[in-house]
Structure formats: structure tokens, C-alpha cells
């Protein structure tokens, strides 16, 4: 017998082995590759988002933006300057007559044309703006799937599109168009589960520049002025657990409470998952009878529910950029404490 194994058969065997190995390795490799691409993409998307926070306040620019929700379209002109650690901005309403908001650091001045029907304090409710609320980028990657959705050009600037798809039905999906150099948000959309755009925000005219003159930041409208000083020195109210006379027995995953000012004769607390937010208002029912159920303006849902506590009717209102079903679940989960009722009776 021939001891020497024919080279051809060895070759054949090796070839077969190699082929087999390839078969095994390649699918795994392909899967790894796509996973790497996906996670790489998610990382890249998050990296863009991390630039968003500081960009909004620390970039100086002037421009005009359009905001559309439902059948309403509003347009505003804005000049925003960040200098020596201070934010100054001026917004001029482009719709229906004049009106403007000028903010310098913590001072806000609002000038309104004289329209009898609108109460001035409705426009700038008293209480601190929730600056601390989202001063840092909250980790919302758990609730939204970040994806790079391409590149585009908006208002003359190159932008990258970051899609944040809701991972569950308790929230909407968001799409953000970020300017490539600064990370400034120049366009955004809120979409529901069917992909319908509920809210659209976009700069139609934009100039990113540090050269914003003082004139552009001065009030120019003649009219009634109302001023407020944003009180960001106020300590955040602890809102874990018992929250001002009522508690939430359920909230959508990822939404955490934040401090909020008082509202009317009841209390309000705001919640956010880092991207979307809703506010809960609990007030005793007065003379005014509000319609219960769900309403929606663009991406904002308002859900109202009446609840009896110790024979007193309370109105629970949940307002936020969340689906109506979620708002309903939150409203149903509000439990008013008896103590709260007693406290109100005393006042």
C-alpha cells in the first residue's frame, strides 16, 4: 500500500476544512459586523447629542424659526448671545402684532401688545424656570434608540440627523437635526408611533456668529413690560416619595421627578425622561368645570380627570409631550392624600 497520502486528497481535505471553517466564521463575523455598526452608530449618535446641551446655550446666533403643531404655525425671530458665561437672548414674535421676550442672565422682560383678553401673568407664570431640570444631559439611551439618520442642510448649514426612536409605547419618537460644527439644534420633530409628525420646529433663517450686537438684544417694542427674575437659587424641592400632598403610584419607565413651582391653589410636579416631559397639576375643583378626557395640541397631550377625596372634588391634569394613553395612566395613578385635603380646607 502506498503510505504516502496523495497530496491531492490532503489538499482536498484541507480545502474542505477551510471551507467549513469559513462557513462557520463568516455568519458570525457578519453578525458581529452589523452589531458593531449598530452600536457604533448609536455611540456616534450619542456623541452628537452630547454636544447638544452646551450648544443650545453657549452658541451665539441669530435667526428666525418656525414652529408648527397641528394647524398652528408660529414664527419667531431670535438673537442669542453667550458671552462671559452669561446668556442673553431676545425673541420677537412674528405673528399677529408685536411682542417680545428679552432675557439677560436671570432677568426676563416680556413686552406684549395691549390685548385685553390675555392676562399678563399668564405669559410668564411666576416661579423659577426649571433650569436645573435638564442642565445636564440625562441618560435617555435606555428609553430611546439613538440612530444616525443621515445628513442634510437646514437654513444654510450642514446638519446631521439623529433619530431617537421610542423603545416603548409610553413615549413619542424624536428626530433632531444638529448643526455639524456647533451641535446646535436647528430642526426637530416629534413623531407618534405611526410616524406622523406631531410637532415641527425649524430654523428658516440662521446665522451662527459671535458678532451679536447689544442693539439686537434690547427691547424695541413699545408696550406694557412685565419683568421677572428667574430664581435659580432656589433649592430643588425633594420630590421623591411624597410629593406635596399627592403621590404617583405609577409613572412611565425612565421618567424622574424634578422640582416645579406652585400653580394656582394646588401643586404641580414635572417629570422627564431626559427628552420628553410631562407636568401633573392637582387642584381642588373650583367654580370652573373642566372637560375631562384627552385633548391634544400637536405633540402635547392634556389629560384631565376628576377624583373625589374626602367628599371634595379634585381635578388632576397631566400635560406633556407623551401619548394620550400614557397621560391617562399617569392621571389614573395620582393619589391625593387626606392630609392635603385637610390642609386645603384650612386655607
Amino acid at each position, binding site marked *: 500500500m502506498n503510505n504516502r497520502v496523495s497530496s491531492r486528497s490532503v489538499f482536498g481535505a484541507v480545502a474542505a476544512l477551510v471551507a467549513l471553517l469559513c462557513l462557520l466564521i463568516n455568519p458570525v463575523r457578519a453578525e458581529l459586523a452589523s452589531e458593531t455598526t449598530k452600536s457604533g452608530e448609536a455611540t456616534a449618535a450619542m456623541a452628537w447629542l452630547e454636544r447638544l446641551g452646551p450648544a*443650545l*446655550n453657549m452658541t451665539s446666533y441669530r435667526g*428666525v*424659526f*418656525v*414652529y*408648527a403643531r*397641528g394647524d*398652528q*404655525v*408660529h414664527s*419667531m425671530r431670535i438673537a442669542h448671545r453667550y458671552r462671559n458665561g452669561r446668556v442673553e437672548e431676545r*425673541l420677537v414674535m*412674528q*405673528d*399677529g402684532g408685536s411682542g417680545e421676550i428679552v432675557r439677560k442672565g436671570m432677568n426676563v422682560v416680556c413686552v406684549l*401688545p395691549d390685548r385685553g383678553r*390675555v*392676562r399678563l401673568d*399668564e*405669559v410668564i*407664570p411666576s416661579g423659577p*424656570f*426649571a*433650569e436645573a431640570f435638564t*442642565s445636564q444631559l440625562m441618560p435617555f439611551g435606555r428609553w430611546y434608540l439613538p440612530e444616525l439618520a443621515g445628513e*442634510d442642510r437646514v437654513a444654510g448649514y450642514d446638519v446631521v440627523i439623529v433619530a431617537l426612536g421610542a423603545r416603548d409605547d409610553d413615549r413619542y419618537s424624536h428626530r433632531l437635526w444638529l448643526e455639524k460644527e456647533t451641535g446646535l439644534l436647528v430642526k*426637530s420633530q416629534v413623531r*407618534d408611533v405611526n410616524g406622523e*409628525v406631531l410637532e*415641527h420646529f*425649524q*430654523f*428658516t*433663517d440662521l446665522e451662527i456668529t459671535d458678532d451679536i450686537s447689544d442693539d439686537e438684544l434690547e427691547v424695541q417694542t413699545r408696550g406694557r413690560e412685565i419683568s421677572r427674575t*428667574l430664581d435659580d437659587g432656589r433649592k430643588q424641592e425633594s420630590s421623591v416619595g411624597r410629593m406635596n400632598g399627592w403621590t404617583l403610584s405609577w409613572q412611565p419607565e425612565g421618567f424622574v421627578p424634578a422640582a416645579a413651582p406652585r*400653580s*394656582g391653589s394646588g401643586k*404641580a410636579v*414635572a417629570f422627564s425622561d431626559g427628552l420628553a*416631559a410631562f*407636568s401633573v*397639576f392637582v387642584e381642588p375643583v373650583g367654580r*370652573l*368645570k*373642566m*372637560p*375631562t*378626557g*384627552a*385633548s*391634544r*395640541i400637536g405633540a*402635547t397631550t*392634556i389629560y*384631565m380627570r376628576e377624583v373625589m377625596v374626602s367628599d371634595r372634588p379634585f381635578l388632576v391634569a397631566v*400635560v406633556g409631550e407623551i401619548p*394620550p*394613553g400614557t397621560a*391617562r395612566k399617569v392621571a389614573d395613578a395620582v393619589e391625593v392624600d387626606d392630609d392635603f385635603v385637610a390642609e386645603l380646607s384650612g386655607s
Partner: protein
Amino acid sequence: MDERLRETLSSMMDDEADELSVRRLLSHGNQEDVRGQWQRWQQIRDLMHEQHGPADGIDVAGAVREALDGHARSEQARSPVEVPRVSVWRWPVAAMVFMALIVGFGAGAGWDTRTGVSVQALAGGSAEPSASAVTLSAAVEEVALQRLDEDQLRQMRQYLLEHAQHNSVGAGRGSVGYARLVSASGNY
């Protein structure tokens, strides 16, 4: 409306008007006249481009929305519009301001607060709403199914304002927050 203003209006439709002319147009005494002319011309233009508008008038808000979306809505019977991949938003600022006027925030003209805040209210009542009752239709158009009286509207607006404030002005969305706040404060 004199010939020069008419010309400005016409060039606006082609995105060729300069701001100065547009300002002159906007300060024209008879805005009703201007608005009417704009609408008529838009109607003609739509017909020329074989676009179907609603029978009872111009759905301007829809047109703006469409331009914003950058694509034709598949659910409507419109001939597909070829949209370049690059951003289609080329309307000059002046045209946008004018569009805002058309949509109805007329310069000083009366604005009906009943229709100002478009809400789609579902049947509520004391009965526990079933899951279907809170399922809104996919349409983005909002129809006022329930007329709110002034006091109710004001309260609604108050909630929206407070929420917008929590959500936004200081928050990471910057101008979006202001926009929501302005939108929530309704018609001033």
C-alpha cells in the same frame, strides 16, 4: 393695491421678493385685499401644478406642513412631488412671515379664540374611558370636537404655559421651548 405691490406679491410667490418690498406690502392698509390676492394666486398656482386643494378653500397650514415635511403625504390623493434630498426649505424669511399672516394671525385683525387653540378632545365624562377612547386617529389634523368656553380655554392655556415653562425655556431644547410657550399662550 397698486401695481408695485402686486408685483411684489407675485415675486414672493417665486421666492424672489426682497425684504424691503415685502415690508412695504405688509404695511399696506388693506390687508384683506392683499390676503385675498395671495389666496387667489396660490389657487391658480396649485391648479397649474395639478395639486388638489380642499374644495372649500386653501389649506395653507397643510401646504406649510407639507413643505416642512419635504414630501407628499401618501394618504392623500396628490401627485407625488419630486423632492431633492437636500433640504427643501428655501423660502425667504419675508415669505414665511407673510405665510404666518395668511394662516390667520392677521396683523391686528381679530382672531377667534374659540378656534385659536385647536384641540382634539375625546369624549370624557365621568365614566372610566376605555382604551379605545384615548386612541387618537393617526391624522395630525386637529379638529375642535369640543368647544371650550373662555374660562376653560384660559385654564387650559395656563396648564400649557406652566408645562412649557417646566419643559423648556431653561431646558435643553432652547428655542423649541420658547416656541411651545408662545404657542401655548395662544393668541395675543
